[in-house]
């Protein structure tokens, strides 16, 4: 009877069960979402404004060191800093002396005179855009508290009910600005997201002699004098510290990464014989740098730090309805419930005379890193090592199964190094790429049997151990995994974005790639270190740890961006304490403390139209402390002479990306971009280049690069701490500089011990 009943209604029952499952899951999902949702007070009336920051007021001395004086105007809420070395006054906001404010509309006049701006989102609207307010116009409340060596100023934006406090102090002959997160107050339904800190501090017009320096790639400058050569629609540029702000495969692993990422939290403004250098020292992970060259509405060149107090997401969901009840079909904005619980601290150094350039800025930053133990001294050799990346293997589509293409076996690694050694190349940094079994599935361990397996790897390890000048690093990618990766949980080990979606991507092969949760990355590395514990001669090449740092909303192991950085430094520390040498392909500041070799460093920048010149700022910071090579491989360059000059200008080791087998085998594989890599074809070039560097440039290896001057489009001058000066000429004709003649497509080394 019962059986009959069920049999007759089986369809209905199944339907009911499905509906019940959906309703239950839906109920709990909505409940969870409500718990996560931000609550706010509906009762709010904006208080009367008591302050007007556009009033004149008066600057009064509030703090002093042997080199600086800090002045504060309690009506404008703005500061000025006087450099006592030469009396130069740095203004926190642009006044009439800096720019003809009367010619501007009210909004821009207010912007120029704003010590800060804020951005906020309306929490009531699920797809509200960001609103920006200028302290000069919108700050109706100002409160000043005098603290040791400075002032704490609270700026109140009354309409959205947001209050932010900034502390300006003088410490160690720097101006230090802090934004304490606990002092942020939100009275109504609006959530603060960002604060621009002194956007017009040190702003310069086009008549000044100088430039803006910003951390695009290895470093970039836009010079005031070149304003006439820029396009009519000049746009500003934003850079996000350590990783693009938006985290997805499309923004991390494409051009967008280079477009928006700053590996160091720095910027600088040169104004004649003076320069301002700003660098983030706390909470830098959650900040960005904004650069506006002259021409974007106002003819002032300015730059500033923007600090993020909350994360904002652009959620791409085509079937989620917006505030008007209609499906948006595109991006929906969402902000975090909580503020990022960390204080931000920015330091401003004021340089003058010879030091007032990006060389001086790099030296300041290097000193800061050294003083705080944030960079290690890893130089051991006395000449530039040869930097090799060796592609070990790849795959090719076969008729039914994929075919493994062996490019460099472990025994070939030894052959290459041995052969080079015989020819006089004593220092080699080898990075082995795709040496793992199933490397296409992001496996971190298991030397491929085609390459010689574990015994082959062991031989390499023993070889490296025996030969002190030769280092071998196994490159690994710990931050990406796929659904085919072993020992990887596709739910728990994955990084999520703020709306609980895995950061993933479908590949053409139908697999899914995931960004890995920082803890999972740490564990992957820990397991790897354990596996290679007995391979004493091998180091680890980190492809991505020094490139990407991101916030992860994984429910089991959530990470803010800063926590991720901490986790990654623990990861590197784990390897270091286990005696492993470390090479890093990323040069985010947090790797400097652990890295023995930096490779694939930028040797240029993204190439925005506002950028006039690329400069080796990052190289100047690490030069003489950590050996490095840049991303331009000699064998992939259209002209090796030009590439060589680039290495020399950037103080980098000569670098080649090679294979033992012929590059013709790479046709129709995923590595087809390696169009010319056969070791036998390049061996002589390698030896010659190494010897040339050894003979001519050993005098500057291990020395700090202190000066970099752009003489003309083609000629550069690079100075080192020991007085050696290298002139580089990229042009097709001989050039002269400082009384020297530099041969076409050549270089000369002068001064110092040379």
């Amino acid at each position: 009877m019962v059986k009959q009943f069920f049999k007759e209604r089986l369809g209905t029952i199944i339907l009911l069960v499905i509906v019940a499952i959906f309703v239950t899951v839906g109920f709990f999902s909505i409940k969870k979402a409500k718990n996560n949702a931000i609550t706010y007070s509906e009762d709010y009336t904006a208080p009367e404004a008591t302050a007007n920051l556009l009033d004149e007021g008066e600057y009064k001395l509030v703090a002093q060191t042997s080199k600086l004086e800090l002045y504060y105007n309690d009506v404008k809420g703005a500061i000025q800093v006087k450099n006592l070395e030469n009396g130069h006054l740095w203004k926190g906001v642009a006044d009439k002396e800096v720019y003809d404010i009367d010619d501007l509309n009210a909004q821009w006049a207010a912007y120029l005179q704003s010590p800060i701006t804020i951005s906020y989102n309306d929490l009531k609207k699920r797809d509200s855009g960001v609103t920006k307010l200028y302290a000069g116009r919108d700050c109706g409340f100002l409160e000043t508290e005098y603290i040791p060596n400075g002032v704490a100023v609270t700026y109140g934006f009354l309409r959205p009910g947001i209050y932010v406090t900034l502390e300006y102090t003088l410490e160690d002959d720097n101006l230090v600005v802090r934004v304490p997160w606990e002092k942020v107050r939100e009275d109504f339904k609006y959530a603060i997201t960002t604060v621009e800190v002194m956007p017009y501090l040190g702003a310069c017009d086009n008549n000044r002699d100088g430039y803006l320096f910003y951390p695009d790639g290895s470093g970039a400058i836009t010079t005031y004098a070149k304003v006439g050569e820029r396009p009519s629609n000049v746009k500003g540029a934003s850079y996000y510290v350590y990783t693009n702000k938006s985290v997805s495969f499309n923004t991390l692993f494409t051009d967008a990464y280079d477009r928006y990422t700053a590996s160091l939290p720095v910027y600088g403004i040169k104004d004649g014989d003076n320069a301002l250098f700003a660098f983030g020292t706390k909470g830098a992970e959650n900040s960005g740098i904004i650069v506006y060259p002259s021409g974007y509405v106002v003819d002032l060149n300015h730059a500033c730090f923007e600090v993020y107090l909350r994360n904002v997401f652009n959620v791409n969901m085509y079937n989620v309805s917006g505030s008007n009840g209609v499906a948006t079909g595109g991006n929906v904005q969402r902000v975090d419930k909580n503020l990022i619980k960390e204080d931000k601290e920015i330091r401003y150094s004021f340089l003058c005379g010879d030091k007032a350039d990006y060389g001086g800025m790099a030296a300041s930053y290097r000193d800061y890193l050294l003083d705080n133990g944030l960079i290690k001294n890893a130089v051991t050799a006395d000449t530039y090592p040869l930097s090799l990346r060796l592609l070990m293997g790849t795959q090719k589509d076969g008729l039914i199964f994929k075919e493994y293409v062996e490019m460099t076996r472990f025994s070939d690694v030894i052959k290459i190094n041995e052969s080079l050694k015989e020819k006089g190349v004593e220092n080699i940094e080898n990075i082995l790429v795709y040496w793992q079994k199933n490397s296409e599935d992001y496996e971190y361990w298991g030397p491929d049997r085609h390459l010689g397996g574990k015994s082959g790897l062991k031989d390499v390890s023993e070889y490296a151990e025996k030969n002190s000048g030769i280092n071998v690093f196994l490159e690994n990618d710990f931050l990406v995994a796929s659904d085919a990766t072993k020992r990887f949980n596709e739910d728990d080990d994955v990084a999520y974005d703020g709306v609980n979606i895995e950061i993933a991507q479908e590949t053409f092969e139908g697999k899914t790639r995931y960004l890995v949760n920082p803890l999972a990355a740490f564990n992957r590395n820990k397991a790897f270190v354990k596996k290679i514990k007995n391979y004493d001669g091998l180091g680890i090449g980190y492809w991505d740890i020094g490139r990407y740092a991101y916030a992860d909303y994984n429910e089991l192991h959530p990470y803010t961006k800063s926590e991720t950085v901490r986790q990654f430094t623990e990861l590197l520390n784990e390897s270091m304490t286990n005696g492993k040498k470390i090479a890093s392909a990323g040069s985010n500041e947090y790797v400097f403390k652990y890295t023995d070799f930096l490779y694939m460093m930028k040797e240029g920048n993204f190439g925005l139209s506002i950028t006039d010149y690329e400069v080796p700022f990052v190289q100047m910071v690490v030069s003489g402390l950590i050996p490095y090579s840049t991303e331009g491989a000699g064998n992939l360059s259209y002209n090796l002479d030009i590439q060589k000059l680039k290495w020399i200008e950037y103080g980098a080791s000569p670098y080649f990306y090679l294979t033992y087998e012929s590059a013709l085998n790479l046709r129709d594989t995923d590595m087809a971009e390696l169009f010319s890599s056969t070791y036998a074809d390049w061996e002589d070039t390698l030896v010659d280049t190494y010897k040339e560097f050894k003979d001519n440039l050993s005098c500057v290896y291990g020395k700090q690069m202190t000066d970099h001057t752009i003489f003309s489009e083609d000629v550069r001058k690079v100075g080192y701490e020991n007085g050696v000066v290298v002139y580089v000429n990229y042009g097709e004709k001989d050039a002269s500089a400082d009384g020297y003649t530099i041969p076409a497509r050549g270089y000369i080394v002068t001064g110092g011990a040379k």
Partner: protein
Amino acid sequence: MKLRKRISILLLAALTVMLSAATPVSAYDGTSYVTNGTSERQYVPDSYVIADIINNIGDPENRQNAFKKPLDLFIDKDDNLYIVDSGNSRVVKYNADHECIAIFKCPGKAFKNPQGIFVGDDGDMYVADTDNNRIVHLDAEGNLIEEFTNPESDLSTGDVFTPSKLVISETGYIYVVRGENIMAIDGNGTFRGYYGQTNIGYNLAEVLTRMFASDEQKLFVKKRLASSYVNLTYGDDGMIYATSMEREEGEIKKLNAIGNNIYRKYKTVGNTLQNPIKAWIDNNILKAVVAGQSFKFGEYFDDNGMYMEPLFADICVDKNGIVTVIEQHTGKVYQYDQDGRMLVAFGGMGEKKGTFTRPVAIDVDSKGNLYILDQINANVQIFEPTDFIKCIHEATSTYNNGDYQKSYDLWRQVLTVDENYDLAHIGIANTYYKQGEYTKAMDEAKIVGDRDVYTLAFDKYKYVVLRAHFLPIILLALAIIVVTLVLIRLFLKASNKGYWEFISDKSSKMSIRRGIAYSFYALFHPFDAMEGLKWNRDRINRLVPFIIFALAYVVRMAYLYVVHFPLASIEIEDVNPWFELVKLLIVPISWIPASFMATSISGGESKIREITFASAISLTPFIVINLPLMFLSNIMSKSQKSWYGVFTALAYFGLFLVLFIAMMVLNNYTFGKTCAMMFMSAFLMLVLWLVLLLCYVLTGRMIQFVISIINEFRLNFL
């Protein structure tokens, strides 16, 4: 990117079944590459570097310092640069050092949206003053000499004259782009005819319409026109080089004195009757599937992996005949040699220097620098050739001039920088061929998959080998023939035996061995075999057809491996086993239900079991022909392709014949009825495919719907 991956993605996209919201992987962001007419990019060293950018006229005080919607540029023989600054109604002239030296506004009536310019060797400027419906002739100082308005002609009555892009020939004729034509005007402003129209060929539907439609109906039929021209330039060789939207013959044309296209063509459009169904399938389905298998100007896929049809906004040609075009949608610059082979592609859309927002014009100066005008960025970017591409230019030019040894040396030089540069290997293969080193030529050609050069060398090599070892080869051939004959004899005997055993031994079921033998017997005695099936249907082994299907598939896959390189239609790494399976079995398998349905409603007697068997038998010609053919192909080359095609056609013919006979015998139909039922079955097959496709799409949609609901629940979004 592998072709087969592309195909699967495209098929998915075509069927609009995207089961996941994740985005496909972007292509590698290399700066320079070549595609060689396939869908794969082969990266090469940087070929051009940015030398300079001109953003304005260099006079900051001037209110019109910046360009406004510039639309064309021209470089004269002294490397002076002219920019048609349309939004500011002026022409700006720069010297070779990129200093602004003159600004021309039209004396009298001001320019109105001028869109094109040509400058003669004497410095005279011809400006297409588009919205004023005229061409303005100014002297080198900017003084008005004359203007050309709509030339009177019977062919152009009623059309508004809106000249945009133009060139002046050495004879003084003005050639102006005008829709599907290039209009020629002489120095007196007289219409001299239309030039360069593509032959559009006949169209079956059109022929039928003309035949049967009434005069009133004909009025509603849209006239079929050739595709429009986009832009043109004048080469040092006196040819007009043009870009068009013409997809049949090719978007880039080199027009000789009488307007015939003598550049590389996809195919020659002739006056043949076109099958509209085939045309539709070619244009709508196969286009995406066969993408990458044949040459195409531009590329099949853009940086995001999406299928694209190129729009070449402008074209320029240097003194050596190297052609460079700029693609407007992707911002890619494509460069071709004198024969239309791709030398390099670079550029793209973006914010960085060297990329574009809307590129509209390109020209080349005497040093080989490329000048590219961007309408939205309102600037000109100047690209300087690197030593690498200069060497390639020189190599192609010396080869075209017949200096093979020098070109060989230059190609060797190219290979020291890029071991994988295809044209260098082809160039070297050609030189080896000319020097009589055929095996080396074959090896080089094989590296880059060039079947033409390989064929040339192989044919010669074959001859050389034959001459050197005539007797052993003849003996070997005789031995092979004898062995083959013996094998055929044994095979026939075995199949005969299988048949008779099955027919005579009524007590037992068909064994697999007998079944297979029976199938091949049917190849030679189809009527007997079908009769046999009909009367012994209950004893048929159901497994045998599937073994035959599997066997055919194995033969197909083996064939792909073994077939001689110049005759292979697809590279091994591009083979998609699933696609091959579907291609091979779609007809025989879908024939089974279709034929059963058709015959069931029309007095047929056949049942699924024997139809399946008959369907499998239809593949035996394929097996029997392809098995020896794959080995035989190794002494054939592309020049014997037509011969080779006969065998392939035979296999298809055999398939059809077996199905036909099966239909006739199994159902006891007359010849006429069999024909009708064949049509009916074919129609039902089509219906079946459509229904399956529909089910696939709808199921995909449903799954997508359920997944999106589940995703909504998963999100922390409120």
